[in-house]
């Protein structure tokens, strides 16, 4: 941290956070390598690729999918994963008739173990305020247009559950392996603001 490049003058918040770190370390409450370990975990390991692995497995393995929808926490544990925040995991499935969207109107609850840390817009006031009253309008800003007959289900994380959307498997992916499918699945598709597009070149 100390020999970090700072092209702009350091913000007050940054100096305050460094003061906090110095104090916690100097008092022996934690060690700097514990902080490093957590930061590195979120930067390298705990990200939307975890969720994508769950989605791809559910696409190729109907039994796993059934277990995933019945008990998300137990099913993702089969892959060595955890929702990471919140006690229970509810996986909600997009179909031709139903589109799911997750939000936390009161703060920023998010299935961090599967999707990593939330994007800035997920924590911003516009998304939090609008997702429950005008989700179609929000989806439209992400380029997702849904016909009226598709039911929109919005899941507001007000307590200890966390949600992940299981997107629809796109057309043109019959010949793909599970690993290839993982590459198709974006963070935003598991929040529910976009669909998973068919791979380039697919019919």
């Amino acid at each position, binding site marked *: *941290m100390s020999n970090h490049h700072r092209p702009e003058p350091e*913000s007050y*918040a*940054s*100096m305050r*956070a*460094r*003061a*906090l*770190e*110095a*104090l916690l*370390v100097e*008092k*022996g*409450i*934690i*060690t*700097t*390598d*514990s*902080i490093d*370990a*957590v930061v590195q975990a*979120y*930067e390298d390991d705990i*990200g939307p690729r975890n969720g994508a692995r769950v989605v791809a497995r559910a696409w190729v393995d109907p039994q796993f999918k059934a277990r995933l*929808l019945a008990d998300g926490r137990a099913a993702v544990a089969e892959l060595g994963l*955890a*929702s990471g925040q919140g006690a229970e995991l*509810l996986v909600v*499935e997009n179909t031709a008739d*139903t589109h799911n969207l997750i939000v936390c*109107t*009161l*703060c920023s609850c998010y299935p961090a*173990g599967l999707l990593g840390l939330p*994007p*800035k*817009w997920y924590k*911003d*006031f*516009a998304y939090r*305020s609008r997702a*429950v*009253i005008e989700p*179609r*309008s929000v989806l439209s800003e992400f380029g997702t247009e849904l016909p*009226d007959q*598709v*039911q929109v289900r*919005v899941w*507001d*994380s*007000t*307590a*200890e*559950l966390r949600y992940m959307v299981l997107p629809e498997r796109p057309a043109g992916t019959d010949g793909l392996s599970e690993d290839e499918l993982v590459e198709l699945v974006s963070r*935003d598709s598991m929040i529910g*603001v976009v669909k998973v597009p068919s791979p380039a070149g697919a019919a």
Partner: protein
Amino acid sequence: MSNTIHDMGGMHGFGPVEPEPPGPVFHEAWEGRLWGMRQAVIRSGKLKLRPGENRGIIETMGNAAYLQTPYFERFLRSTIDRMVAHGLFTQAEIDARTAAIQADPAAPLPRTQDPEAAAAARASLANAPWPKPASGEPVFEAGQAVRARNLNWEGHNRLPRYVRGRTGIVERVNGWYVIEDDHAERLGRNPQPVYTVGFDGREIWGPDAEPNLRVYLELWEGYLEPAELGAEAAFGAETEPAAAPEANS
């Protein structure tokens, strides 16, 4: 605190959502360090927050301040506030340390090692808390009509304004959790079951709701009372072109 600006579901006036392409996990280095030290301290067992305590602090910073303060700065403020409150250090200590860094921003910070603790902190990230053991039978069952109570007391709660007084259907009976409400003692047993309750968009937003919308919330038992489902709250009413069955979720 209830009824403060953090309870913003259904408000207008915050502008458009601004999507961003996948980028760095932390936009600024200090955000990552803060996240890391917060997790490390909690996982070390040296900071035991009661449920909702951190959120409660963020909610009492004042409505104008809340809207002016970016997420990680709110998080920084509440983290320091709670650590002071729990005696990890004093306000004077953090203020003095900040002043010292402002006076000499280039001075190196201490670095310490404890590989075992670091490995434990890393490993603990996957250990989410389990629900509390059940201590009785849930009052409501899936499929039952319930109304969210109209509670307006001050102090932290987890019952959004937009759903108070509205009638919905219990979608799912979840585990038992300590109720994160400053008035929990008035809301029955603790811990208590949390229900996922689905509400029709028109029940919440009236005739101008977007078509074919359902909103689901997790609500502690004490936030609910039994209800009859009125016409507006009825799921799958005939005005919806193709209401999907409830079975799958």
